[in-house]
């Protein structure tokens, strides 16, 4: 009887691997697993978030340095700097950085047609959300009372969940990375938690 071992990686890699069960099947299966572990990224989903659930997301990352990033299709510098954000996540995730990326302004149609395909292309390894608060103002104020909603915006939190610095005046990649390094240096040791 002919049988197939099917590894569905549709969500992660956008394709399906089919391996015929044969003498070499287990070796091929092992190779496929290795390939997946080396290249797989979490499935791209956009979960709703509001000021209350954001607070909870930050709190449950206690012990890690948290970077909250806000971006939109309506913000060209956000799009241009997103690959750098993905790199930051990959580079510092193993050292204890956890990124929470929040898409704002884009409506449901835009998110389906543009935002999710964009994220699938950029392949972030961090959690991605969309802002879904009843009161956008309350959401903005909850991040920084002095901030008026300018994008892109990044907020860095220390391991105790306290906001230590806000970057709201355009793309400040070098300053942001330096601030991340400073906070990571204060962690007691290499974080063993997952980066999400």
């Amino acid at each position: 009887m002919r049988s197939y071992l099917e590894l569905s990686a549709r969500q992660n890699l956008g394709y399906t691997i089919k391996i015929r069960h044969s003498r070499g099947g287990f070796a091929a299966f092992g190779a496929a697993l290795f390939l997946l572990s080396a290249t797989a990224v979490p499935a791209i989903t956009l979960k709703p978030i509001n000021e209350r659930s954001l607070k909870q997301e930050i709190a449950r990352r206690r012990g890690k340095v948290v970077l909250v990033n806000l971006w939109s299709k309506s913000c060209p510098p956000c799009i241009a700097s997103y690959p750098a954000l993905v790199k930051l996540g990959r580079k510092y995730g193993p050292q204890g950085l956890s990124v929470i990326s929040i898409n704002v302004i884009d409506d449901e149609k835009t998110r389906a047609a543009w935002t999710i395909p964009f994220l699938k292309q950029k392949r972030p390894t961090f959690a991605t959300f969309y802002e879904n608060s009843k009161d956008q103002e309350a959401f903005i104020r909850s991040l920084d009372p002095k901030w008026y909603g300018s994008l892109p915006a990044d907020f860095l939190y220390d391991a105790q969940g306290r906001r230590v610095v806000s970057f709201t005046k355009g793309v400040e990649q070098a300053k942001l990375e330096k601030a991340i390094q400073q906070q990571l240096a204060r962690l007691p040791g290499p974080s063993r938690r997952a980066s999400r």
Partner: protein
Amino acid sequence: MFSSPSSRRSVVSLFVAGSVWVPVWALTTQPKSEAPAVAEIGKLAPAFTLTSPQGKSFSLASDRSAKKVTLLMFISAECPVSNAYNERMVKLAQDYTPKGVRVLGINANGTESVEEIAKHAKAHGFPFPVLIDVGNVVADRYDAQVTPHTYVIDGSGILRYRGRIDDKQSGGPPTAQDLRNALDAVLAGKTVPVTDTRAFGCGIKRMEKE
């Protein structure tokens, strides 16, 4: 000391350069002692004079003497969020200019050229001037962070409202007309119901300063 022709030419060049730059500096920064360093609701709004791409000067101080209500709108020619408000800004000017409100657009984005700003204003039929805030001096004094970011100043020069136009950045009928509510209240001599609002938009691209 400056006897050689080349030295004289240098001195003349310096003088000419100075005569050009000093008035520009004077036009863009006119701090008034009673106004706070950064604009605050309920306090005197910082005075300024800015010029349009056509070279015409507009001054807030002169508005005060004219007892006019002033609407400032920090906008952008490139920002998609600001551009989503173009028609609404035109309608605001059409609705409130006849009521005695002076409407001024301000572009403080260092990345947008004077030509681009003039072309954009013309293309969208702005019935208000768009002034160039060189070095984002006025944006800094108003702590304008985003486009669009609006300010309502009453006839006495007091800042009465700061924030969003409404709560719908991407179109559709807004549920909160904060700017219109503020303008209506100021024109009626009433208290502005909500004085400080915020909404997502493009950050003003500021000139880096030491």
